[in-house]
């Protein structure tokens, strides 16, 4: 359960409204003055969908997911499409809205509140402000692309109970080409170590068609070497969406045999495969 004052954390986080260093784009823009960085987010966060879902890892469900619009990455295959990338979409996130939603979710059996996106990192100040005005918040799950800065992760220490990290790419070239982000691997690996210090951690990897050797295997081997005990969720439900049709490798669904193959490989590496 969250253990720190979200009021104090919200006050700290407000620094990033004035000079945003929440993600590794490190734009440094004054969002409260209307300046926009790569994510194009202002100081408000918006929820384009919230509902109690059962498709997450079994240890998380039922989970009350809050989908926030806006993201710092531009993954070509994003299933949320424009909603992920346009932070103006959705209902304003504030404490009254969140409090009411928490009650609604709890009535439907949700065992936790999960922030997803888009990417919640770009909205840390707004999320903390909303949480600080709520009572009896459930355990907090933070599902992220893990492109955050250490400063941003520090704001979540003691607030987030479970990090769910999307380790999407096993090398920088694929990350640059598909998500438009440099230095991907070193950033995610650093953040996995940081997150593990302060909360439970689940690592997720979406199998992409044609990326078994270049992405899945390096991710699995790195985890086997450094974080073998961490729950590793292998997702094999890839469908081509958004701009995926422009990438020949991503334009088709994942072949049916890749999921079982990846799970066998992960098991042979001694990984703690879940989901």
């Amino acid at each position, binding site marked *: 359960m969250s253990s720190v004052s979200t009021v104090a954390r919200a006050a700290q986080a407000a620094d990033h409204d004035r000079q945003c260093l929440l993600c590794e784009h490190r734009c440094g823009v004054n969002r409260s003055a209307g300046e926009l960085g790569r994510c194009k987010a202002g100081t408000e966060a918006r929820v384009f969908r919230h*509902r109690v879902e*059962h498709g997450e890892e079994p240890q998380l469900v039922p989970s009350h997911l809050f989908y926030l619009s806006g993201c710092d990455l531009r993954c070509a295959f994003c299933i949320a499409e424009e909603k992920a990338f346009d932070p103006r979409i959705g209902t304003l996130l504030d404490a009254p809205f969140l409090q009411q939603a928490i009650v609604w979710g709890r009535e439907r059996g949700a065992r936790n509140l999960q922030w997803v996106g888009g990417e919640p990192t770009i909205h840390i100040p707004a999320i903390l402000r909303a949480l600080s005005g709520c009572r009896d918040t459930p355990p907090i799950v933070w599902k992220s692309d893990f492109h955050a800065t250490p400063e941003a992760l520090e704001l979540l220490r003691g607030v987030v109970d479970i990090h769910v990290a999307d380790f999407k790419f096993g090398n920088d070239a694929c990350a640059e080409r598909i998500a438009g982000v440099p230095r991907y691997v070193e950033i995610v690996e650093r953040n996995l170590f940081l997150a593990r210090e302060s909360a439970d951690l689940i690592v997720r990897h979406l199998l992409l068609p044609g990326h078994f050797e270049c992405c899945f295997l390096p991710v699995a081997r790195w985890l086997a070497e450094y974080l073998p005990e961490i729950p590793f969720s292998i997702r094999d439900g890839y469908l081509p969406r958004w701009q995926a049709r422009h990438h020949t490798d991503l334009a088709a669904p994942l072949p049916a045999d890749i999921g079982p193959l990846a799970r066998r490989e992960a098991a042979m590496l001694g990984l703690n495969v879940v989901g």
Partner: protein
Amino acid sequence: MTARRVSRQQVRADDESTVSDIRIGTDGRVHVFGTSREILEALAAIGVRGDAVRLRLNGAVAMTGDDHSPSSAPATRTPDNQPS
């Protein structure tokens, strides 16, 4: 990074909170985005096999105390290329 100023126009989106997206591949795999308990129960009832359904229904059962024993064996996938 060059900062830009834009208007704070609010764009309204359709509320998708009550809609699940189900796609069935030509190979028979079922992809569900936004899996509610009711969707899982419906999939189990029509005989969609898979640990994905069974494990998650069991999770729901643990929370609600209901008694469900859906079938198992692989067929369902939770579509995963959602953003973070």
